[in-house]
């Protein structure tokens, strides 16, 4: 019986990783443990997202610290890129290639034969819906097509770890939805899908976990709700749709952990701010049993946008 692989072989581990470009900070003291699933790296331009991804893929080397991608260090490209696919932000391609050649010739660098490479190239091109344009020169592609052919190249060798730098940039809404569905599919197959974005609402919907970056530092990481619950200085906001919001407001104000209750503009709901979400939800059960008809309860600020706002403040230029 063979021993199961060590747990680190299913994780991406960064330990105290820093990278400086001369005196300019890229990222500083980053320690992360990323499990499989969709992980979003979020931060404004210049926050260190691309540096972090380049560090993971070995395109740049850490000034200090260690990195292991499923047990492989980025200093071993011959091993690393058999398990890792990287769609970079660089919008430049080897000259004169068609979309198919771009993927096919990349696969030939793995040392595989023509038949295998051709089959794998078409499979990945099909997966990103680029079959019709595959025999055209990449130089004539639109931004969205270039994004998709890069994605096809990064998934062509069936990697366990996918790193995608701003993969949704330049995609129209339909293709964007298809691409997000592909990410979910890949993550459901047990892969790491690491996506960077500076558009918060975009990653909010697709991420299993997020890494928030600001000025080269990781300011928060983990599942978004977990990150939110740890921000104690900002009370949790909950929107309750009910038939008697005024009565509900007077009841919740009796609780010491409720700091604000505001009746919604349409008169059909109440926005509560509480310092103890657990106690608040238990209390709400009690209130519901005493006659107020509650239609829905939804957290109003446990999304990436709010978390980012609370952690980093309004000076960052995120959308």
């Amino acid at each position, binding site marked *: 019986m063979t021993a199961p692989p060590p747990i680190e072989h299913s994780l991406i581990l960064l330990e105290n990783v820093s990278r400086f*470009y001369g005196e300019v900070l*890229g990222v500083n003291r980053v320690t992360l443990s990323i499990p499989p699933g969709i992980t979003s790296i979020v931060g404004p*331009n*210049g926050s*260190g*997202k*691309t*540096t972090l991804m*380049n560090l993971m*893929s*070995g*395109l*740049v*080397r850490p000034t200090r610290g260690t990195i292991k991608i499923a047990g492989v260090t980025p200093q071993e*490209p*011959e*091993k*690393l*890129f*058999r398990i890792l*696919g*990287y769609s*970079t*932000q*660089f919008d*430049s*391609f*080897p*000259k*004169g290639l068609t979309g198919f050649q771009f993927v096919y*010739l*990349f696969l*030939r*660098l*793995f*040392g*595989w034969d023509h038949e295998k490479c051709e089959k794998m190239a078409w499979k990945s091109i099909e997966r990103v819906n680029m079959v019709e344009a595959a025999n055209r020169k990449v130089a004539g592609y639109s931004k969205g097509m270039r994004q998709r052919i890069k994605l096809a190249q*990064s998934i062509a060798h069936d990697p366990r770890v996918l790193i995608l730098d701003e993969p949704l940039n330049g995609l129209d809404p339909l293709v964007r939805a298809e691409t997000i569905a592909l990410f979910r599919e890949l993550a459901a197959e047990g892969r790491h899908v690491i996506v960077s974005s500076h558009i918060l609402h975009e990653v909010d919907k697709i991420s299993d976990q997020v890494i928030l970056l600001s000025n080269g530092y990781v300011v928060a990481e983990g599942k978004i709700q977990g990150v939110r619950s740890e921000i104690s200085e900002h009370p949790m906001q909950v929107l309750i749709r009910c038939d008697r919001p005024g009565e509900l407001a007077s009841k919740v104000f009796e609780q010491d952990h409720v700091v604000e209750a505001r009746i919604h503009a349409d008169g059909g709901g109440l926005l509560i701010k509480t310092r103890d979400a657990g106690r608040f939800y238990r209390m709400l059960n009690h209130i519901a049993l005493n006659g107020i008809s509650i239609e829905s309860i939804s957290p109003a600020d446990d999304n990436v946008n709010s978390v980012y706002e609370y952690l980093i403040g309004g000076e960052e230029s995120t959308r």
Partner: protein
Amino acid sequence: MNDLPIGLWWAQIRAVVRLEMKKTFFARRGLWIYLLALAPVLLYLGHSFNEMRLREYNTEMAAAHAVSTEALRSIRPGMSTSEVEAKAGTPYTKFTFRRRDHERTTYGYTDGETNYIFSFVDDELEGISERTRPGLAQDSLIFATVFQFFYLRLAIFFGCVGVFMNLFRGELIDKSLHFYLLAPIRREVLVAGKYLAGLIATVVIFTTSTALQLWAATLYLDKRVLNDYLHGAGWGHAAAYLGVTALACLGYGGVFLAAGLLFKNPMIPAATVLLWESANIFLPAALKKISVIFYLQSLCPVVAPPGGDVSGIWALLVSSAEPTPAAIAIAGLFAVTALVLVAASLRARKLEINYGTD
């Protein structure tokens, strides 16, 4: 040793070569390399066509104004135009003009091989000049000079700068090098693949040009003269020139591939190497040996001027070193190339992609 995945590396090298070939051979920005390589061919073609035209002209003149070599050689200074015409007949060309109150006349004769120009002042022969068409020996020397001073030092040198420096530096500038660095390929294997691609391209371009130069330079020769030459030293010379061309690509290619990896501005090392190689002739014997051109010149079949017997001001400036035996020169070039490629591979292992965006 048996664990080394040689088969995989070889497949990867072939894949890199396939990718690079198109870029190296058909890049629009590489057009000047073809022009540089083919420039001497045009020079020799022009020379050969001119020689053929002159030979034809001389033959026609000799037939129209037949005169023996003996009759022409019997003409002495002090003779008048009528005495010369009595010995050699009517000249094929005759030109008279007045200058500083003197009448100057020029007569031209040919025996088919040599042109004789007789210059008269006031009807008295003052100067005789013989112009023999250049023969194989002189052409061989001219070929050696052009080959060593233009072709090796400039054409192949700059051709290798253009091809080999672009292998890495050009892709860093184009922001497309990451295409290779995202593949599971050892950086040393990538260096080997790119070097081999550059070597194939330059060897094909420059040895083809050398072969064409040899053909063009001997195009005007009589079949008999050419056959005698080829069956004497000719084929050996051709093989040596082709071999030296290939070795020049090998040596300079390694140097400039490494320079493209080691320096951000590759023109600085290129200029330094050019200066060093150009100054080779003036360097002391020991320093001469630390250059690619010294070994290449050692392998050339004809010594180009200035050879060992320099005199005058040249003797003060030029130093000579014993040419290195062929086997040592070839082994030396291979060894230097291998060392330079090892340095390039070590640099490639630490190569980062930082196109300046984040």
